[in-house]
């Protein structure tokens, strides 16, 4: 159960299975795979202590490529499966891999309820804003108007914001990043692991075949510094290529101030990942008026589901000795001679 990273016990490759990944060439799922393996090496627990549970989708093929325990379940249901596993085996590190369809369309209800339950799971939601595996239908995160196989005249529904949904559902750890930010992704994954309770990691992931460039608007190398903001607990909320912009408290939302690089004004807020107001405002920012937040958006401590379940079992044991013979023989009994 040690999370020490001082002594390097494992390499990323130790968490790689022999199976060759079957994603399309160019798919960003490869990058996330590598990041998870790297994060696991950093975490420093042997592969048998990790289990990866997934639903169905391109993303959900993930477990096959890991040398850990894995369960490729059914569409939309990895969360309750993972919850059952964690309640049964609380010592395991349980990872859930899901997609925007798997986790928000068919599995949306489990997501809400899992987040408020706060079981110690690490949820990685790969958001490519499309259904990859079924070849290009829209998902709940597809931008309105997008043309695709099931919407030849454009989609007519407003997209879901996964982070906003997580905030509303009371998730105790929420992070957002992109498959193209490998280093940040690894860091976030390690922190997600370290968090006791459900960690929700929203990962923008480019689908090269059916929705290529979906996130170029804010992840493209050229422009990303002006369109992302790295949120970090205890650090000021600054962004921009020259780090010359910052967020200040406005009228119920953030205002953006510009300043000379290096001279961060006092009005620029210092981020507090435990402050519900800042968390809400960060997650309520809408791109492109505001930058897209990247990093750990929320982290608070709360009892985990499996702890509560087991502590009630403990309480019951203290209250009532588990004596089955006595139980079965309880109530009015009578002798027949």
């Amino acid at each position, binding site marked *: 159960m040690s999370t020490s990273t001082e002594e390097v016990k494992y390499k990323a490759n130790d968490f790689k*299975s022999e*199976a060759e990944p079957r994603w399309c060439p160019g798919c960003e799922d490869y990058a996330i795979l590598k990041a998870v393996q790297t994060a696991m090496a950093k975490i420093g627990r*042997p*592969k*048998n*202590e990790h*289990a*990866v*549970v997934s639903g*169905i989708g391109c993303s959900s093929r993930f*477990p*096959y490529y890991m*040398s*850990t*325990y*894995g*369960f*490729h*379940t*059914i569409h939309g*249901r990895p*969360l*309750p*499966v*993972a*919850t*059952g*596993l*964690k*309640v*049964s*085996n609380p*010592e*395991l590190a349980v990872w859930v891999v899901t997609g925007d369809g798997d986790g928000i369309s068919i599995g949306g*209800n*489990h997501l809400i*309820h899992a987040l408020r339950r706060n079981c110690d799971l690490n949820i990685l939601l790969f958001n490519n804003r499309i259904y990859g595996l079924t070849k290009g239908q829209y998902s709940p995160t597809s931008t309105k108007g997008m043309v695709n196989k099931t919407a030849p005249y454009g989609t007519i529904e407003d997209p879901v914001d996964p982070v906003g949904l997580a905030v509303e559902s009371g998730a105790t750890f929420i992070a957002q990043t992109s498959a193209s930010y490998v280093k940040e992704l690894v860091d976030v994954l390690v922190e997600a692991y370290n968090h006791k309770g459900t960690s929700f990691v929203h990962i923008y992931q480019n689908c090269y075949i059916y929705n290529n460039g979906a996130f170029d608007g804010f992840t493209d190398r050229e422009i990303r510094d002006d369109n992302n903001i790295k949120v970090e607990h205890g650090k000021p909320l600054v962004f921009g290529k020259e780090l010359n912009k910052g967020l200040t408290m406005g009228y119920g939302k953030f205002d953006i101030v510009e300043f000379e690089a290096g001279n961060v004004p006092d009005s620029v807020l210092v981020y507090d990942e435990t402050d519900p107001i800042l968390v809400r405002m960060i997650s309520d920012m809408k791109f492109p008026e505001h930058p897209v937040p990247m990093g750990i958006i929320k982290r608070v401590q709360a009892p985990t589901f499996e702890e509560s*379940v*087991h502590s*009630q*079992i403990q*309480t*019951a*044991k203290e*209250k*009532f*000795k*588990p004596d*089955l013979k006595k*139980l*079965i*023989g*309880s*109530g*009015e*009994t*009578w*002798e*027949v*001679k």
Partner: protein
Amino acid sequence: MSVEKQINEVDTITVKFAGDSGDGIQLTGDQFGNTTAIAGNDFATFPDFPSEIRAPLGTTYGVSSYQIQFAAKDIYTPGDTPEVLVCFNPAALKVNLGIVNKGGLIIVNEDEFTDKNLKKAGFETNPLDPDDDTLRDYRVHKIKITTLTLESLSEMEMGHGDKLRCKNFLALGVVSWLFSRPLEPIENFLKSKFGKKPQILEANMKVLHAGFNICDTMEIFPIMYKVPPAKLEPGTYRNINGALATSYGLLAAAEKIKLPIVFSGYPITPASEILHTLAALKQFNVAAIQTEDEIAAVTMALGAAYGGSLGITGSSGPGLALKVEAINLAVMTELPLIIFDFMRSGISTGMPTKTEQGDLLMSLFGRPSDSHLIVLAPSSAQDCFWISVEAVRLATKYMTPVIVLSEGFLINSSEPWKIPNLDDIPEMESGFRTDPNGFLPYKRNKETLARDWVRIGTPGLEHTIGGLEKTNETGQITQDPENHDLMTRLRYEKTQKVANDIPELEIMGDKDADLLLVGWGSTLGSMRASMEAVASQGKKVAMINIRHLNPLPKNLGDILRSFKKVAVIELNLGHLNMLIRSKFLIDTAFLGRVTGQPIAVTEMIDFINKELETIKEH
């Protein structure tokens, strides 16, 4: 208390309590059942209530009832029709009027027969009027239960409503007197229930005794009944219903296999009882979890089974319907998931509080593609205990999901149970693999065809499973055509192997008979009662009750073929019947009823006699 009334000793009698859902009918019934048990009778009960929580007072659809048959001999059913009916209001009388035996005793709470209540119940005239014909064929006893209750509590300082709530104990006092029952068990119950509320305790005690005493003093009944104790096997007995028996069976199995239980469920009538019971028994290492829906319930249990716990879930038809996809994943991944289905009446929402045996074909075939698993069905309230143990044994030994087809009727009905000695139940092995040497996730035990169960977390056994087809032994995903054909057959064969590991069927009744009755589940009781009734007229009949529905016991074919005629009886339009016909090509006779109630013994007797006639004619 000296009693000098005429005492009528009878062998068996059926009593029914009926009243508003708020009248405490179920509690009254339960308590009467208890005194009956302690008096040493055999008995069987049938609680029946509306799906409304508390339907508006005095309406016919709000009537709740509790029927009990008790006897000086072995009995098998709660009785077709009551000899004694206790009615708390006109609606209860209205609903039950047709079913009381001619000449039977009807006790009514006279106070409730007001014009308003009569109208609500749909009576045009007051059946209690001396010149009304409605109750001509019965012996009617009018008791002012409400008034008497209030009178006997007149000195007590408590609210009118609280006083009224005691009236069912007055009725219980009356009936206890009528059947020469001791009051102690009821007193004990009251003490344990209201120990902390001395006033309520006192009031109920008062009223109970008042009911008993007025029978003595007011000479309400010209006779009393006495039902002598039955000759049951010696031992310690308790009263058990299917809900408790099911839960206790799971706890016993968990103790024997030394694994914790993760029971995840979503509330639904009548399955919720199990979730309630287990939630209150957490001390036995039970994680009882209410989920957001049935899909989460079954997948959570599956996750637990994958982890290495006893993953169990339970529901009724509408919930089972939602679990189909996940159960198929369990079949594919070969994990020991246990699914209880407490069958209820009708397709869709149907009649949620009524019973039926309609989910057999669904359990066997209601999943996409060729998907096979074990199906078991308990045949009585106490058998629920043993079926729970059997479900755990087979699921874990064969690494396969098991569906237990239980019934709403069994959940609620109760009977005397000789408490088993837990030490007699054999220990079970989880058989977790720990040896990495030669481990392959889909390599099978030669005898059982089961793959290894791995506790997730075990070093050296890391592997991935899932819903995609996998290569035999290695478990690598593949689309190889012949491999899929092979795996489909292997999964089927594994289930068939179980037939070597289950008891053969035993024929009840006359092995030389021409007619064999075949049933499963709760029909055991009425079939047995019918068979014995027919046999007592000198006719030969035999019967079997099938508890293992998939695979079927090995000797079933031989048994079926050794009778001239086979008649299948079910609470559906012919599920087991279809299975038997297709498997054994036997032209069966069939009796199926879907009324939400057990089939009446009289109806079954008619059916049997008719079939016996047909055989003769040939």
